[in-house]
């Protein structure tokens, strides 16, 4: 179980139609790799976010499959094309079945 999972995203407030904008996302999560041992030598079970997706107005921008080799607090920076004003939908899928969601609005002029 992961506690205090907080997604954060950074998207420009406005852009011109057809522009490519830079999107940054960060989510606080321990990303327990399943390789570490606790003080008594027992393996700490794996608990990571295994998938991250970003959609804009229902169309996919990026879909990432994460493995335990992604660092604590997974960070992604990528570009998205924005044809019109709308909403970015960010979704993170946890090993334990939890789904974390975040949205961001952008105005295209």
């Amino acid at each position, binding site marked *: 179980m992961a506690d205090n999972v907080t997604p954060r995203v950074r998207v420009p407030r406005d852009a011109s139609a057809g522009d*490519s*904008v*830079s999107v940054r996302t960060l989510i606080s999560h321990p990303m327990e*790799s399943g*390789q*570490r*041992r606790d003080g008594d030598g027992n393996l700490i079970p794996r608990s990571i976010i295994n998938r991250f997706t970003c*959609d*804009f107005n229902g*169309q*996919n*921008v*990026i*879909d*990432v*499959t*994460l*493995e*335990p*080799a*992604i*660092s*604590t607090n*997974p*960070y*992604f*920076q*990528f*570009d*998205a*094309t*924005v*044809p019109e004003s709308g909403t970015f939908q960010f979704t993170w899928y946890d090993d334990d079945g939890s789904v974390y969601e975040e949205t961001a609005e952008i105005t295209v002029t």
Partner: protein
Amino acid sequence: MDLSRRQFVGTGLVAAAAFFGLPSIVSAATLEEAIAAFTGGAEAGSDGITLIAPEIAENGNTVPIEVDAPGAEAIMVLAAGNPNPDVCTFNFGPLAGRQGCATRIRLAGEQDVIAIARMPDGTFKQARQNVRVTIGGCGG
């Protein structure tokens, strides 16, 4: 249900093998198997893909990397010297502004980081960069 002793032992063994055996085979995938699973054994060219990783990473727990492969539909990142070589796979949708992404990864020690891009025409491109790590990022 009427199971003989022999049937009972047999099904128990199969169930135990399915439970203990298969997951360990999957997680013990080697680098070659991971690459083959992605490329289907196809040869990878080296042009048209950039992998930016530091030559020396002080902390193996967060090594910043960036991959870029214009026109690719997916990029897989692998760490050759990690207990499990898989790092992540980026799949790009129709609204991707560029076929690239930056993230932070864990590296167990000095090793090669490998990025393989799958192009829409079914060809593959590969980039490789050696990274020296001062403090390993696994176990500990």
